[in-house]
């Protein structure tokens, strides 16, 4: 328990008020013991209590719903990341589906048509098309 005398008790109450829970923890027990033991403490506590009552008469309005909503709206969200990932996977899926469709189409075409000159034709530049070859392919 820390040292407590009238001078320190007066300073303590003048600063922190009359409620012991507001007194510094390391001095609280000593101050409470002093208040019980010294008759001069009561007047100091009564004076401090009147100022405490004034202070705690002050109320501030609760935050508005609008403010609360704006603050929450700005919070980081897992869902957004998930949404982006979903979009990415969807895009990838579509791309793969497209690619597999092309492959399937090619395979089907390959099954229906003989390869021969067609392979060479598709790999050549369009301006260099050999119409005679195309005719052969038809």
């Amino acid at each position, binding site marked *: 328990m820390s040292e407590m005398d009238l001078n320190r008790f007066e*300073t303590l109450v003048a600063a*922190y008020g009359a409620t012991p829970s507001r007194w510094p923890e390391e001095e609280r027990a000593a101050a409470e013991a002093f208040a019980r033991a010294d008759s001069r403490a009561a007047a100091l506590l009564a004076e401090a209590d009147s100022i405490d009552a004034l202070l705690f008469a*002050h109320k501030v309005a*609760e935050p508005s719903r609008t403010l609360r909503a704006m*603050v929450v709206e700005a*919070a980081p969200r*897992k869902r957004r990341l998930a949404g982006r990932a979903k979009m990415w996977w969807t895009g990838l899926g579509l791309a793969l589906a497209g690619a597999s469709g092309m492959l399937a189409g090619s395979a089907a075409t390959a099954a229906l048509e003989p390869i021969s000159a067609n392979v060479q034709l598709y790999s050549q530049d369009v301006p260099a098309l050999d119409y005679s070859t195309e005719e052969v392919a038809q």
Partner: protein
Amino acid sequence: MNPDDPDGELVRRVGEGDVHAAEALVARKLPRMTALAHRLLGDRTEAEDVVQEVFLRVWKSAASWRPGAAKFDTWMHRVAFNLCTDRLRKRREVALPETWDAPDPAPLADAEISAEQQSDAVGRALAALAPRQREAIVLTYYQELPNREAAALMGIGVDALESLLARGRRALKARLEGADE
């Protein structure tokens, strides 16, 4: 995260993008931060601007928040306190007439005075205090910060905090009772 930090787990979840954790953190801290800013600035609109900025910084920092000496609530107080004192400093940089003084609050002698009127009168008396006295009272009484935390936030020692508190309380009483200091 400080293992004794009551907000630690919530902040970790906010950092992972858990919107329910963000809502819980807002429910827990928004009234506290709004009250702090409102009492320091004496202006609700400005207080709301500050609070939005505080939470933007929370959202940005939550994912990278790491254990440290300070509790999350203390860190939030520091951010809000600094934003408020910056605004107050800018206000003081605007030249005021030499005769300017904050309006005196109405005395509270009338026993019939309503709770709302009394609250308004105390609010005006708080606003009329010297800034450092007001800061000390707001942090200690309304925000209920331990004396060492309040002193550290203000960049002063505990003795200086106690002096500001005692002078602030006396000045508040004198103003509210309509007496000369």
